[in-house]
């Protein structure tokens, strides 16, 4: 069993679009990995003409929203930065460590990297100064915005197609579905860039260590 990694296409988003875009992507991914009994829930995006599907589980929704809030908080402190959110699925394994007894370990079998470029629109402060120009810049900004919005929508749609394609192409590595009641989705975690590391690299490094674990105890 190996760990599959998917790097999604980078998206340029504005601050107010982050929540919707992230929700859409995260829920879509999880829906495809929520192999327990689900009642799919369709959600229409407000900002775009896209409908995505949620797995309908409230806890999942809550967790995702929390993470998104955290990310938005981080993005506000680090404006105009490229950032990545990593959604990873793992298996919980009991690793027998010799003296200290069992240790829970996470074996990641899939990583999704969502790349966002949070752009900050230049604020139109100059409203007072140039009377004539204001109208023009206002209109230009609106036009740019709508162009940008349209291209973001197309890119978001591409990302969703990308997810579907990836999900379809790589099925082998998905662990067996546990039979327990109430299982909705494989355990997952969402990693957002934290304020502490400037480079996102530390997290990635850590994760690489874990996933590259030599003793794979998978049954498949």
């Amino acid at each position, binding site marked *: 069993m190996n760990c599959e990694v998917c790097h999604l296409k980078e998206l340029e988003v504005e601050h107010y679009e982050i929540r919707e875009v992230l929700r859409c992507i995260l829920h*879509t991914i999880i*829906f*495809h990995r*929520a*192999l*327990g*009994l*689900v*009642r*799919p*829930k*369709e959600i*229409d*995006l*407000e*900002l*775009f*003409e*896209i*409908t*995505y*599907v949620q797995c*309908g589980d409230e806890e999942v929704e809550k967790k995702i929203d929390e993470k998104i809030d955290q990310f938005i908080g981080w993005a506000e402190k680090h404006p105009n930065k490229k950032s990545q959110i990593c959604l990873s699925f793992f298996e919980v394994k009991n690793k027998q460590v010799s003296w200290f007894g069992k240790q829970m370990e996470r074996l990641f079998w899939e990583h999704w990297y969502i790349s966002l470029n949070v752009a900050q629109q230049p604020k139109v402060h100059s409203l007072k100064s140039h009377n004539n120009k204001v109208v023009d810049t206002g209109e230009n900004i609106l036009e740019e915005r709508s162009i940008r919005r349209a291209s973001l929508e197309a890119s978001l*749609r591409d990302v*969703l*197609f990308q*997810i*579907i394609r990836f*999900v*379809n*192409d790589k*099925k082998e590595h*998905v662990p*067996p*579905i546990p039979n327990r009641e109430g299982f909705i989705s494989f355990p997952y975690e969402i990693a957002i860039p934290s304020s502490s590391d400037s480079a996102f690299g530390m997290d990635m490094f850590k994760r690489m260590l874990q996933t590259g674990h030599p003793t794979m105890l998978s049954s*498949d």
Partner: protein
Amino acid sequence: MDQIVSQFLLKSLHIILDSRIPSLHPNDQRSGHRTSVSRARKNDKWFNLVLGDRPAALENLNFWHRNLMDPMIIDVILVDEGSNSSSVDAYSAMKASVETVIERWVVHYESSRVTPNINDSSLHKKIYKKLIVLLRSLYSQMRLLPAYRIFRQLSSSGQTYNLDLIYKVSTFSNPFSRAEEEMMKEYTFAPVEASSGRFSVAVSYRKTLSDFNLEPATSLFPRIITDYVGSPATDPLRSFPSFDKGVRATSFSLRGARPPSSAPFQRPHSWTSGFHRPAPFTQGHSLGGSPPTYCTYGSPSPPTDMYSQRAQSYRSTSQRVNSYEECQLSPPFSPSPSPSPPTYFSSGSVGRNRGRSETAPMTIPHPTASGNARYLSPNFSDPNRHSLPPLSPRHTRLDPSSQESPSGIRSFRKQESLRSGELHNHYVNQKVTKDGRDDSGRFSGLLSSSGSPRIGFSRSSSRLSFQDDLDDGDFSCPFDVDDVDPPASNAVDGREGSELTSSSPMGAKSQDAAVGVLVHMLRTASPLEQNSSCYSAQSLNTEQEGGVATASGFFMPRKTTDALEELRSYREMKNLLRSKSGAHVLTKEEA
């Protein structure tokens, strides 16, 4: 294994039909349907995907799909019914539908080897798991393809359109013609390999569906109205996509943009919910809410301002009414006096705005309950109208829908005219009988000042007759009334201004003055009604019913002469009252 195959076919058919064929689940609220907490039926739990009720068509699948190995080809067909069935000859009647395959799904379990099925449960589990994933992605994909938008549009509002989505399931299919193929794009889901075969799902879909114009069927406007009864919660712009869809079928621009664009529209629409807010208020409140009459006087304030002003007037009015502590106005009576002029005035615009939900109050039943709302809504359609000119293209397109409303409007107008006419008669009688009473005198004085709105009323009633002619001919120029109004309203302004100066300390032709006038009128109404007790109540009730009767469909065109006579009578009234108790009026103006 066979069971897995057949269930897979069933499930995939279910998914596809569920998200393409609106007729299968006509009354479902989509989200409610999906998230119902009820226990899923056992059958539905296959592949861990609960989809809800299975369409009956699926039950038949087993019958016709004899051989599991055959491909199941599902064609999603867009049927374009001929738009107008107005022409009578047989040929045109037959020309109706053009069927176009917009999507073709092929679900196939290809059996590769003839080796006996290995009943290895773990193997089956794996296959099952993979199929689960496949179906999940199918489910998502259904919503990303262009045809989904059409499906949503067709199934969302209660209207019928000129297009319809139907499906056809078969094991063979005519291959597409060259031209058609060029328009199609293909997508194949990754097949799931099983020991004895392979599951594959593929789709050919039309890249763009902009060739199809989604237009509402013209015969169902009454339904539109009922949809909007008292439901500001209904998406106010839902009608827009249907009306504006002459442009593109895939232009979800309205739908998608609906929430953000509904934000600006929310403002004018936000006061539809305001319409319904007054309903629970006491009558005084609701009446006080008729500062819209000052839009009768041609004040083109944007709807948001109207709203806030209305809110303010609500507050002020409520204070005044409370301080005034007169008894409650009976519901049938209270809405009538003041709001009626604005009702007249803007009844035309109500029709225009019918595409928006603020016309919800315009619906006919519940004269008492909806009376307030009804009276108020026309008021607000006024500011709406003033704010509308930039949106006129949209509204001209709304006009086909407003064809239905004229009859409703006319009936309302008739009702209003009747009621106000009779009320005036009442007022005249009241004033004659209660000269001695300060209050009544004041009220009558106020009535005289309120005669200005009355004049507006009569003006509007005279305009009503004009409008009738207009309506009879063509309702497609909503802003014609606008053209009529401002000059008339200016005239009224002049009159009102003069009357107000005479009747109140405020000399300015201000909107506040108009509000004050209305408020006074309202307060006028209550004691009058009290004093006249049974007579007025009865007569009002009867006139209410009479009004209802007229509203229910009988329409009698009013002549200009009638209106002018009314105007004259009002003038006389006013002069009479002024002469009697002009001084009392002055005291009543409260800030």
